[in-house]
């Protein structure tokens, strides 16, 4: 009887621990998923504030401005349909260029400016960040649809 109780206790303890660990992992997982959004989605107000997400697209031509301190950078990320102003403080990647693909991680502020904590550009000549490509593809698809609709009517 005593060994059986002991074993039951052991099994119960193990199960409880396993449950706790699973809960911990899944909870951390759902809390820290980082979604991807395009400039068009932000323009349509479908993106929540105060949640970190990734924003991808092209760096708009003639949009890059250095702040007074030399460290703060303002630029716009566009998917060729809509553009979002971005503010970032720090060193930009070597291959950050106007007209090139870029992915930024950060949060949308109430004033509509995206405060980026991380800026990623391509790291060789051929590579376009997949998320930047995705944003442009979506915008083009959207545009194609709005053009087609009047014709169908």
């Amino acid at each position, binding site marked *: 009887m005593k060994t059986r109780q002991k074993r039951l206790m052991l099994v119960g303890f193990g199960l409880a621990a396993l449950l706790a660990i699973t809960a*911990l992992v899944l909870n951390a997982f759902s*809390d820290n998923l980082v979604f991807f959004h395009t400039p068009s989605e932000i323009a349509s107000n479908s993106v929540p504030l105060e949640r970190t997400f990734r924003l991808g697209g092209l760096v708009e031509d003639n949009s890059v401005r250095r702040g007074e301190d030399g460290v703060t950078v303002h630029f716009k990320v566009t998917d060729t349909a809509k553009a979002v102003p971005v503010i970032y403080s720090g060193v930009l990647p070597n291959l950050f260029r106007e007209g090139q693909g870029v992915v930024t991680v950060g949060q949308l502020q109430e004033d509509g400016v995206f405060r980026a904590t991380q800026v990623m550009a391509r790291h060789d*000549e051929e590579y376009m960040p997949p998320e930047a490509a995705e944003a442009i593809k979506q915008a083009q698809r959207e545009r194609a649809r709005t053009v087609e609709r009047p014709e169908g009517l």
Partner: protein
Amino acid sequence: MIAEVGFFALILALILALVQGTLPLLGAARGDVALMSVGRSAAYGQLAFLTVAYAALTWAFVTDDFSVAYVASHSNSLLPLQYKISGVWGGHEGSLLLWVLILGFWSAAVATFSRSLPREVLARVLGVMGLVAVGFLSFTVFTSSPFERLLPAAIEGRDLNPMLQDPGLIFHPPMLYMGYVGFAVAFSFAIAALIGGRLDAAWARWSRPWTAVAWAFLTLGIGLGSWWAYYVLGWGGWWFWDPVENASFMPWLLGTALLHSLAVTEKRGSFKNWTVMLAILTFSLVILAAFLVRSGVLTSVHAFAVDPDRGLYLLAFLGVVVTASLLLFAWRAGSVGLGGRFSLVSRESALLSNNVLLAVAGAAVLLGTIYPLLLDAFNLGKISVGPPYFEAVFMPLMLPLLLLLGFGPRLRWKQDNATELLWRLRWIFAFSFVVGMIWPVFVGQWSFLAGLGAFLGVWIIGTSLHDLAYRVRPRSESRQPLTTRLRRLGRSYAGMQIAHVGVALAVIGITFVIGYDDERDVRMAHGEVIEVGGYQFRLDSLDRVDGPNFVADQATVSVFDDGQPLTTLYPQMREYFSQEQPMAHTSLHRGLFRDLYVNMGEQLSADAWVMRVYYKPYMNWVWTGVVLMGIGGFLAASDRRYRRRAQHDDQGLLAADDAGTAGPDVPGDREQPRPTGAG
């Protein structure tokens, strides 16, 4: 011509791998000695041909043979010689050739060092390794030959990616591959044992040194990669939870679990099924890592040219290995008896907890790595899982693991007295607690993470020393000198202790650098002084300098410690002739308690740049910890008993179970003289 010789040698190696993967297994099934002995010669032959193939590719690099497509895209006539040699593994095809060469090397090593194994066992192990080699060699030959010609030949090569032109890269891939591929040996031993139906303590003892060596290489390989990323990528980061890093970390976590579970199987005969399962899973994760890196599903520094065929092949290979191993497991494992019983407070339960925690950690990393890829593959949206997830999961998993690490080596097998042990360790616990409260204050403001890190680090080191003192304490009946008593503990024990101290140092380093690093991206103008982490940095001059295959803007930055000159740093922004992209070259001042790190960002005007000026406390503790873990692994694998006992295993297998309990790192036998040559 040389390239064709290389390709031909590669095909011959594949044919020999086919022979090695079939005949010895057939021989073992039929009891045919002649067929069984084919395995060893096939392994040697395979290694010989792979060496020829590898030498041929190296020759093409050294002689700038740009008619070979792979050389043309990964080398350049201006490339320094050492990078021409290491450039061989700078891309997908060449690094795969290195991978199969190392696999051939491991096969030959097993053939050489396992002469004392029973004939059937060795034949099966080499047979399974042959099958693994067939998988990787046919992948190389059919999808990724580095010997393809480029006609007409290129006049100049496209050059090795400048990021890879670094001493860190010379050693990172070979070390890492030694580790990855080394787990193929543990896997082969496990599969061979399942085929033979003999899953016993002897099997665990045979595969234990191989696992330890593979683990040590993998540890060092991952550490080198991190060390390289730290100063080459120029962000001062050393671990990014990047999918490719995770790909190497998952087999490491499971491999660590395997190492500990093998100890239980060897000493107590328990956990047999679990150990076999871990060996299978670890190797499966190695193939998964190859898939993640080489299929093009990821984009990172490591991702090679995108080719769907390659991904599909590796995925199919992974599927075959996992399915076949698990079927075999389901069919055979049921017949394996349970080992010795143990109670709640025993070394077995401590190691079981270790295994559960490490396996869960591995599963959590797998979830975070694979889930975004799966969603993307099925077009369900793009998400990413960043460092916060992994950090949130790892802290609570590592805390009990590291706490238990202090108790584990002190616990007796089978059953121990919890209160007595706790009482014995109470002063170490109290001391570690006090250190955890005080130490971080000397570095910065006290933080929970750093306090916890210091507490756990000191706790692990303290209990290790306590255990050592306990084991070499003078005993009345034997008056041996201290050195003899130390030596009697054996290398297995020494390796374990060194590796554990390595863990402690790494934990302290990691928590301190996370807690107290000071990273500033600042505008630095000529003559201006910036203060970071209590040090003053002054930009003295900006110059143009020439390198062998690049020109660079170089900044001269003087560093002062409270006004006293400390050192001068020379970060550069390099432009390689063959690349359009400039690349920053970090300048570092390393020290025992901190690194100072300066990296050039962007030019703002003629005399001003944006620079990264970082203060990284205790960074070198992390690297030292990793190196100690590696040394510990090698030391443990070189223990005498693996060499000596091998000859006796053929006979008394059951006896080995009992003899195992009297091994050198068993508290139970402390009062008895250690049996020599028992078996």
